[in-house]
């Protein structure tokens, strides 16, 4: 009896794998994508397909060209592709999706060392780049194609006018049902609140994302706007724009958010606070992307200051 494998303990491993986690994130993102296709039509489906395909292809080509191990089977590029697509207006041209994918995967992810090593969220950075470079295309927000859809300005733009003092809150009455099912203007994956919340709760229940980030993020936004414009304003702000998608799916990106529980709370609060500042004090109606990107950059610092004290270590005095 001999020739048994000899390795270091432990000899048991949990079932979870990187691939499985990423697949479950894709699953959780599915309802929002399906809602986007129903709400905005065939072009939405096309953009999703192009984004996913070009993200995976970019990763494959880059790794082949650099003679690295090809890791597209971990599904992380699919997640990036989906998130990028969800951040595009449904009438965006196909090449926008391709350019975004190249930026997300090659510039942001692979050039910094691939999965786990990027310091900013790839999909969000790509969106920010596209937004600045092709602002007309990226801010066009077509109305939903479903019957009785809300037309005209997006809810966020309407709220912006209230915040800027050029419109009155009284003149503004959104239908909560519209906000929840997403039959209003916006990028293709962010409008259907129900679908996003469903996917987000799935990830929390499965233990894939930490509830601390979405909760502290959304709670901060709610509280800030409660003081700024009252309960109705706070609720509208919570349900419109990219906040839900950002809080559940973008701010929770492992590589670009802190690793400890307390760090994640600080991160979420920071995201919420910056989002509030941008939505209120800048020219922009939306602030979710930049708020999360700000906090992405601060993550290493948060991690450094929130290192847990080893069990039993006594606080140093003096």
């Amino acid at each position, binding site marked *: 009896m001999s020739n*048994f494998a000899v390795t270091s303990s432990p000899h048991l*491993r949990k079932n979870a794998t990187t691939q499985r986690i990423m697949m479950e994130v894709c699953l959780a993102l599915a309802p929002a994508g399906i809602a986007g296709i129903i709400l905005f039509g065939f072009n939405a489906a096309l953009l999703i397909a192009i984004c996913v395909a070009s993200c995976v292809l970019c990763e494959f080509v880059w790794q082949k060209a650099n003679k690295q191990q090809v890791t597209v089977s971990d599904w992380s590029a699919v997640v990036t592709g989906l998130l990028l697509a969800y951040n595009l207006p449904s009438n965006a041209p196909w090449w926008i999706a391709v350019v975004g994918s190249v930026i997300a995967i090659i510039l942001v992810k692979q050039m910094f060392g691939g999965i786990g090593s990027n310091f900013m969220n790839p999909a969000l950075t790509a969106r920010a780049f596209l937004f600045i470079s092709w602002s007309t295309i990226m801010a066009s927000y077509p109305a939903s194609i479903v019957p009785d859809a809300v037309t005209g300005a997006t809810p966020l733009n309407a709220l912006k006018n209230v915040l800027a003092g050029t419109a009155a809150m009284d003149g503004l009455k959104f239908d909560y049902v519209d906000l929840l099912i997403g039959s209003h203007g916006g990028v293709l994956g962010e409008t259907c609140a129900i679908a996003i919340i469903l996917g987000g709760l799935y990830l929390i229940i499965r233990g894939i994302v930490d509830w601390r980030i979405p909760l502290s993020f959304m709670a901060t936004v709610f509280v800030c706007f409660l003081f700024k414009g009252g309960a109705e304003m706070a609720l509208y702000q919570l349900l419109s724009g990219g906040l839900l998608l950002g809080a559940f799916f973008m701010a929770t990106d492992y590589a670009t958010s802190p690793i*400890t529980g307390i760090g994640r709370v600080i991160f979420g609060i920071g995201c919420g606070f910056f989002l509030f500042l941008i939505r209120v004090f800048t020219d922009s109606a939306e602030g979710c992307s930049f708020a999360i990107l700000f906090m992405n950059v601060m993550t290493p610092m948060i991690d450094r200051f929130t290192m847990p004290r080893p069990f039993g270590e006594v606080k140093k005095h003096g």
Partner: protein
Amino acid sequence: MFGKKMFPGGVHPREGVNGKAVNSGNPIRELPAPKRVIIPLSQHIGAPAAALVKKGDTVLMGQKIGEPCGFVSAAVHASVSGKVVSIENVLVASGASVPAVVIENDFQDSWCALSPSDHPETLTAAELQEIIREAGIVGLGGATFPTSVKLTAPEGKSFEMLIINGAECEPYLTADHRLMLEKAADIVDGIHLIMLALDIPKAIIGVENNKKDAIAVLKAAAESVEGVTVCALPVMYPQGGEKQLIYATTRRKVPTGGLPVDVGCVVCNVGTIYAVQQAIREGKPLIQRVVTMGGLVNNPGNFMFRIGTTVESLIEACGGLSPDVVKLISGGPMMGAALPDAAVPMTKGTSGILALGKEAAEMPESPCINCGRCVKACPMRLVPTKLDLLVRGGNYEDAEKCGVLNCMECGACTFACPAKRLLTQSCRTGKRIINANKKAAAQKAAAEATKE
């Protein structure tokens, strides 16, 4: 209700199809003594024992064949009667090669003269420590630290509480569970004798709540003894870690780099307590213990074996291994050592022999995705992925600053890691190198001091 009896971190290792449930109902059986036993002279932490016999000597069962060398050391005894055929270096479970006494069994089981204590209830601390030292008792939970040393309070410190570790948090293992069920009265008696000798007013037996029958039996046995309580603990690995168990049962935190005695506690495994009781009441040295044979073996079970029996003999008694076995493990699946072959002898620290299949096979590592599962799992509240990167990068100084020396190598981080990174292994490497560097620096300083 368990809210207070927890420690931070921890994981729930799955047990596979052949985990604890298979064996917890199997009573302890006597494993037939083998034709020859291989008894290593170093089965404990500390200096190896010095051989008291030579080739050709006839020995009796229970006869001392190894004399402890120094304070941190333990005696070694013959587990069968017969003839010493050789003293040679053998490979043991840890991978080390150590001198061992090989005895040919005469199957007479003739005991040497045993001298049970004539005043068990009025032993002094020194007498108790001497009995334990002479009986060669070490920590049977697997750490194998000499028990006589453990039960000696350092100058100026005292034990307020004796904590008995019956957590048995490693998957598959049921040896302690069966011992608690079958020898509850003896275990409680042992606890009582130690409390009397060392003047410890309080004892807590910590048992994971998946062993409700053992808890009930111990509670009944402990009723008659004042100061002994049984504490049901939530099922969470590593509940049986010394610092974790102390925290769970007393809410006291052992300071970093400190010992349980710093918070007035001393922790002993249930098996150790039983061995101590046998040494006091019967005068029997530690020549046998209970082992769980689990995993992919035809007839799993719990066995009382003679120290020095090979793993091979145990497997034979269990009807052989399934052909799907990938790894053979001595100890539990989380902290045990993988055995290269089955020829190694089982020793005082062998709590289990597990035959694991493809679930224990090596897995390719992938990059850290920074998910934080290792941080959540670490019972010592470290950041394993950070330590992993620091150690792999050769940055031992920063790894030490980040607390790598606190790591107890429980394996929870590696277990939890979805990227299958060998985090525990990195921490282990880091600890070894840092400690070796420290030792070298101290030696250098000492050498220079003598030069001046």
